């Protein structure tokens, strides 16, 4: 168990939507990770597709860099695409 790899699990709840991160599982290999993810996260029709990714392969931003990375330039309104109206038929975008 201690040597099993940690995998992050992504579930797509229906066609057309994105895969969303739902949690993680331990597994000996990626095939087992898919099965373990299925047992934990999709037994009640929660999804139509699963991705698993070894957690170690994910590069994450550091909380210390919060300001430089994420603080928005609110005074530059042209950066925000808020002036367009989306037709109903476009759906999820």
């Amino acid at each position: 168990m201690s040597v099993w790899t940690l995998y992050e699990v992504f579930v797509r709840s229906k066609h057309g939507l994105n895969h969303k991160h739902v949690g993680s599982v331990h597994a000996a290999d990626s095939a087992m990770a898919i099965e373990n993810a299925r047992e934990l996260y999709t037994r009640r029709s929660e999804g139509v597709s699963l991705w698993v990714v070894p957690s170690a392969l994910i590069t994450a931003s550091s909380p210390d860099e919060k300001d430089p990375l994420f603080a928005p330039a609110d005074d530059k309104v042209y950066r925000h695409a808020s002036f367009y109206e989306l037709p109903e038929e476009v759906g999820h975008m």
Partner: protein
Amino acid sequence: MNTQEDLIQYLLLLGDTALVQGQRLCQWCGRAPAIEEELALMNVGLDLVGQARNWLEYAAELLNDGRDADDLAFRRDEREYRNLLLVEQPNGDFAVTMTKQFLYDAWHYQVLEGLCTSSDTRIAGIAAKSLKEVTYHLRRSGEWVQRLGDGTEESRRRMLEAIPQVWRFTVEMLSGSDGETRLARTGFAADPARVAAGWSQQVATVFASVELPVPAAANYFYLSGRRGLHTEHLGLLLAEMQYLPRAYPDATW
């Protein structure tokens, strides 16, 4: 024996085998090597208990003697149980558990696939529903056999010990009762010869993929789950499973 009687025996074979295997798997609760694996084992177990309910409900209706599926599960003694001998064997280590599971799943898959076209529509319906679950069970247990067989030195050693330990019980997967053969002729049951051939091929393929030797075909011996002649392990399993409803017949929850 008439068709009705053959059919009841067949439904008991399917239901009891699923039920006993489900009960065995649930004995891993709290003891599995990882929480993910424990969940998976319990899920497979619960699938099988659900399937057993479907088969036993049908059997109870045909028996028509006032007993329901719960009575069949909890108030029959081992001599009246018709499950395959393989599934009543103790869990042993994880290699034994997965070897048993795989050998059973491979048989179960073949049987259900045959039953999807049963001339009895109720059987065909239950089989189609169960086959989806069992396709997954077989994939999972097959991968475990490969993973352990081709894993570490230790896991391979354990697989090589596990297979001969339970192999003799597979004799029951290679042949059916006379009743099953009769039912198969009228399209009610899965053809035992086809099940045996499909099972042998599936097992040979998975074993060969990780160079696990397939033992010679098992020989007949004096015990037979189909005739209610069980190993000593079934009585203990039933004692645990049936204790509560037998001790407190009026219990509800």
